[in-house]
C-alpha cells in the first residue's frame, strides 16, 4: 500500500530527492504497531505535481502545512495522501464553530474513582508523533486556536493546566485545511497563520482530472471521459460566477456518479443523485441540469460509458 503511493509519486515525476527524503523520514520514524491502523490507505490520489513538490518539501523541512483553497480543490485528499506518503498515523479534527481548547487538547471526566484527563486528538497526535489534519480550521474561533500556538511553533509543547507539560514528538506535523468561501468562516489571525507554511490549492487541471478519472475508471471511454471533465469545469465556472452555489461543484460527487453508472444506473439518474440534487433550490437545480444537459446525454448506460 505504502509503496503504491511512492510509485505514484515517481510516476507523477516528483523529484527523486524528495522521494528519498520521504523514505529516510519513514525509516527514521517508524509508527508503533498499535497505531498502524491509523495510517490511511487512500483510494484517491491527489494529482498536481507542483502542489506535491511544495507539500513534501514543507513537511520534510518540519513545517506545518495550511492548505487553503475553494471547494473541490482536493485539500482533504492531499492531506490524507501526505499521511500515507510519510506513513504516519492520522488524527482528523473537524473544526466547527463551537470547537474550543478542551475539544482539541482534552477534557476532564470522571473514571469512577477520580476526575481524570481525557486526551483530545491534538494531544494524542502530539504524543504519538502523528499527522493531525485540522479540517476547516477557520471555522473555529481564534481564541480556541490560541492553545495550538505553543504546539505549532518552535516550542513544540502542550501545557495542560493542572496536568503535565508534554513535549510534541519531532515527527508530528499538523496540516490545516481552510476554505475562505464558506459562510461562517473567518480569517485566521496572524499569530496562527505564521505557524504554517501556506499552500494555495488550485483547481485540478484538465490533464490531471482526466488522469484521475482514468485511474479510477480505467475502462472509461476517452470521449465520454473528456465530456465529464468539461462538465466539471463548466460547473466550476458557473459557481465561480455565483450563478449557482458551489454545492454542485463536487469532484467526489462526479466520481460517485460515474461509479453509479458503472453499477447500472443511467447517466441522468446518477448525475441527479450525485450532483444536481445536492442543491435544494429548484431554480438552481434547473441551472445545473442545463449545464449537464449540454454535455452528457441523460440516457447513457454502462455500455456507453465503459468499454467492455
Amino acid at each position: 500500500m505504502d509503496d503504491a503511493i511512492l510509485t505514484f509519486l515517481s510516476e507523477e515525476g516528483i523529484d527523486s530527492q524528495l522521494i528519498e527524503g520521504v523514505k529516510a523520514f519513514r525509516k527514521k520514524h517508524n509508527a508503533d504497531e498499535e497505531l498502524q491502523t491509523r495510517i490511511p490507505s487512500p483510494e484517491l490520489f491527489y494529482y498536481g505535481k507542483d502542489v506535491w513538490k511544495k507539500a513534501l518539501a514543507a513537511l520534510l523541512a518540519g513545517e506545518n502545512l495550511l492548505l487553503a483553497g475553494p471547494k473541490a480543490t482536493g485539500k482533504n485528499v492531499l492531506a490524507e495522501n501526505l499521511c500515507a506518503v510519510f506513513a504516519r498515523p492520522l488524527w482528523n479534527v473537524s473544526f466547527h464553530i463551537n470547537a474550543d481548547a478542551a475539544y482539541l487538547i482534552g477534557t476532564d471526566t470522571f473514571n469512577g474513582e477520580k476526575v481524570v484527563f481525557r486526551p483530545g486528538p491534538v494531544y494524542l497526535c502530539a504524543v504519538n508523533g502523528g499527522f493531525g489534519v485540522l479540517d476547516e480550521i477557520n471555522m473555529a474561533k481564534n481564541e480556541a486556536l490560541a492553545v495550538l500556538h505553543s504546539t505549532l511553533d518552535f516550542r513544540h509543547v502542550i501545557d495542560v493546566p493542572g496536568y503535565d507539560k508534554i513535549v510534541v514528538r519531532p515527527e508530528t506535523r499538523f496540516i490545516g485545511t481552510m476554505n475562505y468561501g464558506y459562510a461562517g468562516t473567518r480569517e485566521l489571525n496572524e499569530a496562527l497563520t505564521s505557524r504554517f507554511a501556506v499552500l494555495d490549492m488550485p483547481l485540478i487541471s484538465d490533464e490531471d482530472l482526466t488522469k484521475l478519472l482514468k485511474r479510477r475508471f480505467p475502462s472509461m471511454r476517452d470521449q465520454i471521459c473528456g465530456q465529464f471533465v468539461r462538465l466539471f469545469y463548466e460547473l466550476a465556472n458557473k459557481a465561480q460566477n455565483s450563478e449557482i452555489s458551489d454545492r454542485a461543484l463536487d469532484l467526489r460527487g462526479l466520481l460517485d456518479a460515474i461509479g453509479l453508472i458503472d453499477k447500472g444506473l443511467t447517466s441522468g439518474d446518477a448525475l441527479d443523485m450525485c450532483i444536481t440534487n445536492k442543491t435544494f433550490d429548484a431554480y438552481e437545480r434547473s441551472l445545473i441540469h442545463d449545464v449537464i444537459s449540454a454535455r452528457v446525454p441523460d440516457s447513457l448506460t454502462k455500455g456507453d460509458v465503459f468499454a467492455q
Partner: protein
Amino acid sequence: MIKRHYSGAQRRALNIIWNAAGRYDFETPFMAFYPNGKPDFYFNMVIGLVDKWLDLPKISDFFYSYSRGSKTDEYDALLWLGLENCVYEKELPTRPILSQLRRRRAEDFFKVQQSLSRQQMMLQSMLVYNEQQARWALVTGRKMPLLSAREKKMEEALRFPGSLDTEQVIESMQAFLLEFFHFRTGEKETNVRQLRKGSLADKVLRKVLHHETRQLDVLLVRTGTGHGDREGSVRLLHNQRELHNSADAAEDLAYIRACFGPCIYNEADMRVLENDLCKEDDAYCRLWITKAGDMPSAASSGGAQQHRTLSQQARVNSSDNRSAKDVAKDIARQREKNIEYYRRNGMLIAGSVRRLSAQLDTIFASYAQPLPVKARAGRLNSEKAYRLAVMDDPYVFERPGDEVEHDLSVDILLDASASRLNSQEVIASQAYVIAKSLEKCHVPVQVSAFRSLRGYTVLQLLKQYKDVRCEGIFGYYAAGWNRDGLALKTAAAQMYQNSAVTSSGKKILLILTDASPNDSTRMPAKEGSFFEREYEGEEAVRNTAEAVKSMRSLGIRTAAIYLGPNTNLENLHLIYGKEYVRIQKIEQLANGVSELLQMILREIRN
C-alpha cells in the same frame, strides 16, 4: 441574492448562453424562447457558441445594422439558421451531445407547429417557416417539404460551413440578404411587406427568436425603470432652488401628511423629538415619522378640496414641486410595482431568502456565545463537584451547548431620495429578502426609508421590530433629497424608542447610501457669519460624519452599504471610516448586508 434584473426564464436562458460561451462577463444581445416563454435550450446554446467561436459584438453589430427595417424578425430568423449550422459544425467535434440536442430541437419544432392553430399558422412568415421546416426535416431525416427553386437555393445558402470565421460569416449574411432580398445592410429598405406590429405572427416570431435591444442609459425617470442605476445616472442638483419660506409651514405640513400619511407620534412628542434632534446644523428642519401601512391611498389622500389647494400651492423646489395627489398616486403605483416585481420574481426571492438566512444563521452562530450545558466530561464545575461524591452524579462538568442567545437587533436605513428612482422595485425586494432572512434567524429587524422634502426629513418605518410580516417594505418609494445626518439621528432615536433588545444588547444600524448628503433646506449661519450654508458638499459630509460619530458613541454600530459613483468614495471614508462595503449593483444589497454583519460581529467579538 437576486443577481440580475432578469426574470427567472431570462436568467436561465442567459445561463445557458454563458455556459456555452464559457464566460460570464458579457451581456448577450439575443436570447431565444419558445412561444410559451420557456428558454429555447438549443438556440440559446447556439447564441453562446457564436460568442465562443465568432466575434459576437461584430455579429450583433451586423444584426443591429438592419434592426429598424420592417423585415427584421424575418431576417433574424433566417440568418440565425445560417449561424446555427456554422457553430454546430465548429462545436460538434468537442461536444458530441450537440447532434442529439439539435435533433431534439428539430423534433420540438414539429411538435410546436402541430400545436399551432390555423390562424397562427397563417400569420407566420411562410418563408421562414419553410426554411426552418427544411432545416429541421434534414436534421430529423423527415421528408423534405416542397420548396420553390428560390427557397431551395436559400436553404443551401443558409448552410454556413463551420470553416468560416467572423468576417466570412458576416460576408455570407450580407450576400444572403443581397441575393434573396436585394437588401444591402445600411441602406433603407425598399421592399416593404409590412408585418403588422403586435400581430400574432409578430409576437410569435419575437418569442421564438427574441431580439433584445441594447439598453440605453437611463436618466432621471419619474416612475422608475426598475433597471437599476448606472454610475452617476441620477444626480440631484441645486439648480433653480427656491428658498424655503416659513410662511408656508402649514401648507408644508399638510403636504407631507397628504403624501406620506399621519405621523405616528402626537404633536407634543414630536416637539420633544424635534427639540432634541433638530438643532445646530439641522435647526431649520422638521421631522415626520410615519408607518408604511398608514400611507394614504391615491383616492383618499386628504380630500379633493385639500388636493386642489395643495396642487396649486405646492411649489418649493425642483424635486418636490408635484401635487400631493400626484405623489400619493405615485406612491400607490410604486407599491403595486414593487409587489408585482416581487410576484414576478417570487421563486428567485424565496431562494434568496433561503440562502441568505442560512448564511446569516451560520454567521450569528459563529459569533454567538453558546450557553453551557451539564455533561459527563468537559470543564469541571467546581461548585457542583461535591455531587460526584455525595450523590454519585457524574454530570458535574460543563460543555458548550447548542442554545445561543442573540442579544442583537439590526436596523436597515434605506436612502429613499430621488437618486434611487431607477431601482425602487429592486431595493424593495432586496430589503424584503434581508428582513425576511433576519426574521428567520430570530434577529429583530427594523427597516426604514428616509428622504427630505419641503424641509421635513421623513422617516418611513417600513417594518418595525414587532412586525412579523415584512410586506410593509413594498411601500418603499423614492422622492426628494437626503439629509443623511438628521435621518441617522432620527433612526437612532427610533432604535431606542422601539428597542427590541436588552440595554446591553448590540444594536447595529446599516445604511444604504450614496455618500452624497444633499438637501434643499439650508443650515444656519455659523457664528460670526451672516450667510446660511447649503446642505451639500463638504458641509453636509461633515454634518453626517458627526451624526455617525455620535451614534457610535451611543453604542450603535453604524456601517454603510455604499452604492454610488467613485467620486463620492472620499466622502464615504470621511463619514463611515472603515465600516462600509461597496456594492456595484443594487442586486448585491443582501450580499452587502451579510458581509457587513460579519465584519461588525467579528469586531464585536475581538
